[in-house]
C-alpha cells in the first residue's frame, strides 16, 4: 500500500438505548402490532473516525436497530436532515454531511412513520410514532456527539470471516403463480418465502453471501475497543414477534461481550441483502433439530456463529493493527433513473386502489396497502417531470478497506458486482443508509424482475435494475478514484 497520506487515527465510540418505556407500534409489517414487551434493547451505536490532518477524512457511522429512517411518507420524509439539524445545533464542529445512519432492518423496532397504519388514535398508553421518532433522533444525536468527543488515538485492523446467517429468500417455481392481491402484486415465478417442499419448486432464485467483513478498533495499548460487523442479512429472525427487539444483533452483541468484555462496542452493518433473510427456505427440519440439540434459539445460534467468526479472525487482526493509515471519505449525490410505471400498470393500480377504497369503506383497515397504491400513482405523475431520483453516496477508504453505502434494500447481485470490481482488499457495503425522501424500497436484480413475485413488482420498487447498475458503476468508479489518488 502507498503509505503517502497516512495519518494518525482517532477513534471514538458511543451507544444509546432507544428502547421505549411504553408499548409502541412495531414497524415494518403490513399489519399493525402493538408491542407487549421488550426482548433485548434496541440501540444506536456510533463510531467516529478521523485523522489529524484532513477534514475530508472524518466519518461517523451510526448503526441503528430500526427498520428504516422515515417519519413521513415519501418525499416529505426528511428524518436524516432533522438528525443533522440537531447535530449542527449541538456540535457545530462535526461535519454532519459525513454522519451516516444505517438501519439493521429489524422488523421489531418502534415505528417512527407517522400515519403508517392510518389516522385512528392509538390505544391509551401506546407511544406515538412522533414520540418514537424523537427518542430515536435524540439517541442518535447523543451517541454521535459522545463518540465524536471521546475520540482518542488508536488503531484498526480488518479481516474476513464466514458465518452462515443470510439466506436467499426467493424461491422460484416451474409454474407461474397467477395469484394477485390488490395493492401488492405477488404473481410470478418466484415467491418470497415460498415453500420448497413443493414438487413445482425449481430453485433458489439468487445467491447468498456468507462472508463476514470485520473491522476491529484498538486503543493505544492495543486493547480491543470495538468491532464493525458487516454481513449480508437483515435482522429478521423473529420478525413477526410482538415485542420490541434488535433481533439477532442483540444476541451477537451479547455473545461478543460475554467473550471479550461488556465494554466492547459493536457496529452492526447490513450489507446488500434485499433478497436475503435469516429464514431458512430449506433444511429447516435439520436446522431445527440441531437447535434443539444445542438448546439454542436461532437468534442465539446466529450470535454464536458471528461471534465465532469474530474470534477466528481476531488473532490475525491483533497482529496487523495499523495506527496510521489513509482515510478519505467522499460524499456525493448521484442520480438514479426511476423504475418507470407504465401506462398499463397505472391503469391496473387505479383499479386496485378503487377496490381497496371500497373495502375500506366496508370497514377493512387496509390503509397501509392502499397507501402503496397511491404512491405508485404519485410516482406515475412525478416521473413525467423528474425521471431521476437522488441518492446520497458515501465512499470511504480506510487503508486497504472500502465502505460504500446505498439507500435501498439492494439485491445481492449488485453487491457482488461491486465487491468483484472494487480495488479494495475488502469492501464493506452498507444498505439502508438514511437518505431523505422515500428510502428503503427493494432494488431488485434483473432476474428478480423477470421472475416477479413480491419484491420485484411495481409496488415494491422506486428504482429498478437500470438504477441498480448506476449504483454499481458510480460506486466502483468512485472507489477506483479513491485508490488512484
Amino acid at each position: 500500500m502507498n503509505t503517502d497520506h497516512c495519518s494518525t487515527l482517532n477513534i471514538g465510540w458511543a451507544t444509546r438505548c432507544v428502547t421505549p418505556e411504553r408499548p409502541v407500534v412495531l414497524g415494518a409489517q403490513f399489519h399493525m402490532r402493538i408491542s407487549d414487551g421488550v426482548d433485548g434493547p434496541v440501540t444506536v451505536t456510533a463510531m467516529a473516525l478521523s485523522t489529524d490532518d484532513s477534514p475530508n477524512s472524518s466519518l461517523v457511522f451510526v448503526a441503528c436497530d430500526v427498520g428504516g429512517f422515515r417519519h413521513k411518507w415519501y418525499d416529505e420524509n426528511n428524518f436524516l436532515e432533522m438528525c443533522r439539524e440537531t447535530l449542527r445545533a449541538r456540535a457545530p464542529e462535526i461535519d454532519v454531511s459525513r454522519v451516516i445512519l444505517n438501519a439493521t432492518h429489524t422488523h421489531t423496532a418502534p415505528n417512527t412513520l407517522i400515519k403508517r397504519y392510518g389516522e385512528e388514535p392509538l390505544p391509551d398508553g401506546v407511544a406515538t410514532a412522533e414520540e418514537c421518532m424523537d427518542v430515536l433522533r435524540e439517541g442518535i444525536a447523543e451517541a454521535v456527539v459522545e463518540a465524536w468527543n471521546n475520540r482518542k488515538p488508536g488503531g484498526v485492523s480488518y479481516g474476513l470471516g464466514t458465518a452462515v446467517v443470510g439466506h436467499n429468500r426467493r424461491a422460484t417455481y416451474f409454474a407461474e403463480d397467477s395469484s394477485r392481491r390488490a395493492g401488492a402484486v405477488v404473481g410470478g415465478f418466484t415467491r418470497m418465502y415460498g415453500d420448497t417442499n413443493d414438487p413445482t419448486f425449481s430453485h433458489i432464485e439468487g445467491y447468498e453471501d456468507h462472508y463476514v467483513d470485520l473491522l476491529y478498533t484498538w486503543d493505544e495499548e492495543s486493547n480491543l475497543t470495538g468491532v464493525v460487523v458487516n454481513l449480508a442479512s437483515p435482522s429478521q429472525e423473529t420478525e413477526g414477534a410482538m415485542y420490541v427487539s434488535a433481533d439477532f444483533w442483540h444476541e451477537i452483541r451479547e455473545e461478543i461481550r460475554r467473550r471479550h468484555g461488556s465494554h466492547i462496542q459493536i457496529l452492526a452493518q447490513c450489507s446488500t441483502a434485499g433478497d436475503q433473510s435469516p429464514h431458512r427456505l430449506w433444511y429447516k427440519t435439520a436446522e431445527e433439530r440441531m437447535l434443539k440439540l444445542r438448546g439454542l434459539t436461532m437468534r442465539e445460534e446466529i450470535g454464536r456463529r458471528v461471534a465465532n467468526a469474530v474470534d477466528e479472525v481476531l488473532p490475525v487482526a491483533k497482529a496487523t493493527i495499523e495506527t496510521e493509515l489513509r482515510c478519505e471519505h467522499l460524499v456525493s449525490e448521484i442520480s438514479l433513473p426511476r423504475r418507470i410505471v407504465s401506462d398499463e400498470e397505472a391503469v391496473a393500480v387505479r383499479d386496485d386502489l378503487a377496490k381497496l377504497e371500497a373495502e375500506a369503506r366496508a370497514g377493512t383497515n387496509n390503509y397501509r396497502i392502499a397507501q402503496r397504491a397511491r404512491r405508485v400513482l404519485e410516482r406515475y405523475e412525478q416521473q413525467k417531470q423528474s425521471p431521476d431520483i437522488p441518492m446520497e453516496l458515501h465512499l470511504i477508504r480506510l487503508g486497504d478497506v472500502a465502505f460504500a453505502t446505498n439507500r435501498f434494500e439492494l439485491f445481492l447481485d449488485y453487491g457482488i458486482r461491486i465487491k468483484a470490481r472494487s480495488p479494495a482488499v475488502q469492501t464493506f457495503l452498507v444498505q439502508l443508509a438514511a437518505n431523505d425522501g422515500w428510502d428503503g424500497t427493494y432494488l431488485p436484480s434483473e432476474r428478480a424482475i423477470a421472475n416477479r413475485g413480491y419484491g420485484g413488482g411495481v409496488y415494491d420498487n422506486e428504482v429498478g435494475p437500470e438504477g441498480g447498475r448506476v449504483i454499481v458503476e458510480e460506486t466502483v468508479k468512485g472507489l477506483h478514484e479513491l485508490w488512484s489518488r
Partner: protein
Amino acid sequence: MGSINDRVKMGWAQADITPDQPVVLAGQFHARVSKGIMDPVTATAFAVEAFNDTGPQGQVVMVSCDLASIGNELRDAVRERIQAASGGLDPFSVFIGATHTHSAPDARIVPYGMEQYGTEYKRLVSDHGGSANASRAGMWPDIGLEVMSPADYLEFAVGRIADAVLEAWEKREPGGIAYGLGHAVIGRNRRLTYRDGTSQMYGKPGTPEFSHVEGYEDHSVYAMVTYDQDQKITGMVVNVPCPSQVSEHIYQISADYWHETRVELRKRFGSDLFILPQCAPAGDQSPHVLIGRRAEERMWRLKGRDTDQNAPRQEIALKIADAISDIVPYAEKETDWTPPFQHVCETVDLPRRMISEQDVEDALEEARPFREQYEKLVAELESNPEIRKTPRWYTEITKAYRRMERGKRVRTRLELQTANPDMPIEVHVVRLGDVAFATNPFELYLDYALRIRELSEAAQTFLIQKAGCNGTYLPSRRSIACGGYGSVPASTDIGPDGGDRLVEWTVDTINRMW
C-alpha cells in the same frame, strides 16, 4: 415399506490405492503424467448389515474413492471379486462414489463416452461401425506416454477396493449411529453469468459485463458418526457439496483437501478414525474462490498457511473439522442403537438430452481446430520423435485429442440416441435411522439436490454424486439457458428432463421408506 430390522452391525476399512508408478492424472483436458505423490489416494468402505432375531435383513457397503470418477467397469470389476469371495455380501449392495479429485490416477478405460449408452453400447457402436473394445489407454491417445496405463491402474485399484469392501464386511460389529448438520463455507458456484445472458465456468467477475453468480451454493456439512458398543467413535461419513479440486492442476498424485481433512479429523477424534468422504451434488460448485479471492488469500497468508497451493486445502480441512466438532457433541445425545434400515438398488431409465444436427455441427465446429492441431502434432511427433524428450511434450497433443474426441462423441450420440433414447443408470437409496442416502452418477447441479432434499421425508438426506458410469454434468435449466462449458450438449448426456426424473425417482423411493 416398514423397517424389519431391530439392530445393525457396521464395519470399516480403508485401502491405499496410490500407484507406485507414474500415471496419467484425470481431470483436465490435457494429460498430466504424475511426478511423485503429494499425499496418498485411498478407498474407504463402510459396511452396514441390518438384522433381527430371525437373521440378516439388509445390507450395504458404501465406498468412497479419491478418484475423479467411478466407471461401470471399475464398479463391475469390484463386484466380480466380491462375488468370488464368500461371506454373504451381495455385490449389488455395494456402491462406489468418487470425491472427484482432479489429481488422482485416471481409471477410465472405455472409449470416451461409450459407456454412457449402458450395456447395449457395444452392440450399438459395432452396428455403427465403431470399435467398442475398451482401450488400455482409455481416454488418451496412444502416443507413447510412459505411464502405468489406465487399464493397469484400474486392475490395481479394483483389487485394493475389493479388499477394503470385504474387510469392512468382515469386521461388522454391533453399533450405533448419530447424525447432524453443520456449516462450512467451502463450495462456491463456479458459473458466472454476464450481461449478455451467457455463463462461463470460472469466468472473471471483475468486469463491467459481469452480472451475477449463476446459481446457488450450499454451505451445509452433513455428518453421520458411528459408534461401537463401548460408545467409542469408529468412523464418520462426511458429506460436503464440493468436489476436491483445489490442486486440480498439479502433477502429483493427491487426494486434495480430503487428505488434510482426514489428518485434521484424526488429530481431533483419534488416529484410528475411519472417514468416508462423500461429494454431495456439486456439478456447478468448486472450492475455487471467485468472489473475494484477494481477501481470502490475505487471510491464508496471515494465518500462516503453508503455501498458496496448500493454504486453501488447509483452510477447508479446518472448516470441515470445525463443523464436525460442532456437530458431534450434540448429535451423540441422540445416538440410535436400533436404526431402521432399508436399501434399494435399481436401474432407472433417464431420458437422454436429445441433441440436434445443429448441436452436432456446433460441437464439430468447436472441435475442428483441435482436430487440425492434433493431426499436425501427430505428424510432428512421427517425424521428430525427439520431441518426447521435452518436458511435458504431450500437453498440447493430448488436449487437442480430447477436444477433438469430445466433438466426435456428440456426433456418435446423435447416431445412437434414436435407438437408445433413455440412459439406464444404477441408483441406490439407503435408509439408516432418520437419514437417507441416495446416489447418482453425475456431476449433478445443486438445484436438483435442493429439490430432492426438500421433498424427502428423511430428517437429513445425504446425496452422493459421481457414483458410477463416469457420469458427466447434469445441468440445471437455468444453466442450459446460459450455455457455456458444463451445460452445452457436448458436456452433458442428460439434461433437465432427466434431472427431473432422477429427482422424482429418488424422492419417491426415499419417501416409501418413511
